[in-house]
């Protein structure tokens, strides 16, 4: 049986295999439908991840520096430990079949699950970012009579974000690809599509290559956004100033 199956594929020309992977029954649309779902889940997951993650980080940071928010920081600690300590697939099952079983829309469940998952990772990234900002910045803000939250938002957080960008995008890139486990609970995301098509054509080659290519394109676009944000946030950065002043050329100053 299996020899017959392999013979079948190998007997086809690449053009035929391409046709059955993309053109027959307008299958190419499936990839983009899957891509759409992946992008929607990733977008909301990133959104939830960054908002909740930064919030968790601020709680943990504040507790460490001032000793306040004891209960909240204990909860945050447990949250981060549990989320980071269990596989995301099991979290997805737990959400899809138990916690959010009344929610019929898999994309919504996926967005929430991946968002809550990402928040735990983002919180550690953001905490490191906050800690990288010189303590004198908080002191200067407070000494000028700004409240703790205001100093946090206007002075410490913008500087922390700048330092966080590379690690943050590392997390988001991993997140986009991680959403491919959504297929386990029947969400037709991009990762699920090659399997769907293969079940009709018995041919994985082009579906896998094309789906991978689409992931690659998304990740590359994210990298472009990362570079853009890094540039935008680097206003006032020492190195940039140096570059501007000396035209980016390293000149040897030896006599």
């Amino acid at each position, binding site marked *: 049986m299996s020899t017959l199956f392999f013979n079948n594929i190998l007997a086809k020309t690449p053009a035929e295999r391409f046709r059955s992977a993309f053109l027959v029954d307008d299958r190419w649309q499936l990839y983009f439908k899957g891509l759409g779902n992946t992008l929607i889940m990733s977008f909301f997951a990133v959104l939830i991840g960054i908002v909740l993650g930064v919030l968790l980080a601020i709680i943990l940071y504040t507790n460490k520096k001032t000793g306040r928010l004891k209960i909240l920081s204990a909860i945050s600690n447990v949250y981060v430990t549990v989320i980071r300590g269990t596989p995301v697939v099991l979290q997805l099952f737990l959400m899809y079949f138990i916690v959010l079983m009344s929610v019929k829309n898999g994309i919504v469940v996926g967005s929430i699950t991946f968002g809550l998952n990402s928040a735990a990772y983002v919180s550690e990234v953001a905490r490191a970012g906050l800690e990288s900002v010189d303590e004198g910045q908080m002191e200067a803000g407070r*000494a*000028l*009579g700004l*409240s703790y939250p205001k100093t946090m938002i206007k002075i410490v957080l913008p*500087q922390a974000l700048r330092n966080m960008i590379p690690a943050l995008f590392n997390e988001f890139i991993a997140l986009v690809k991680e959403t491919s486990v959504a297929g386990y609970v029947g969400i037709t995301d991009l990762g699920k599509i090659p399997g769907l098509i293969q079940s009709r054509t018995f041919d994985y080659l082009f579906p896998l290559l094309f789906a991978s290519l689409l992931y690659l394109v998304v990740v590359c676009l994210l990298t472009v956004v990362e570079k853009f944000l890094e540039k935008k946030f680097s206003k*006032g*950065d020492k190195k940039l100033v140096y570059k501007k002043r000396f035209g980016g050329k390293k000149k040897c100053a030896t006599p």
Partner: protein
Amino acid sequence: MCDAIKKEPLIKTVDLCKSFGDTLVLDHISENIYEGEKVVIIGPSGSGKSTFLRCLNLLETPTEGSVFFEGEELTRSSDLNEHRKKMGMVFQHFNLFPHLTVRKNITLAAVDARLHANRKQKLKIPKKQVIAEENEKAMALLKRIGLESKADAYPATLSGGQKQRIAIVRSLAMDPKVMLFDEPTSALDPEMVGEVLALMKELADEGMTMIVVTHEMRFAKNVSTRVLFMNEGKITESGTPQEIFEAPKDESLKTFLSKVL
């Protein structure tokens, strides 16, 4: 000083103690600082000078005792931010906000303070107008120190002396009643110390109340009205610059002066 004593002190500490773990850094300090005084605090490193200064606006929370500002007990105040707006502070490492332009550094807290005050008094002055007025004030302050061309520059492009002078006018933008200086020239290259001290002297001549922790003995001699000598968490001698520098009584002060002069 006689007429000053009748007045309520601007800043008063009562049995102020601060310990870090088991180390007692401030040991029951009770001191009064009156309006118009220029107090310079000197002493060997580790004597608690900076900690004392930082306790005055509660950047350091005292372990025991209390701090009064304008008769109000800061250590119990629920309105600490309001009091801090009237106490300017200048740090050793400037602590300018590197992500903001010089102008924004100066106006950020001032604008916030005015919007807050307007809201409290239910004044309906548009935010734009407040920002415009504060920008104008910032430019006037920058002009005063000859750095108006740097308004749109970021702090990383400035020299240490320029940064510290901008940090000083950032505090001045809040119209403070007292200025606290925490070793303002210690992180500067020697050739830039002069410009910062000159600005501080100008402020002193204008009658600003100042408390300065410094190692600049010449500044202490020439500008201060009173010198406090701290040693091992206590103010062991206090007096006019003449008394402190020409006729020191305390043994540790004599040793200290013999090392620094």
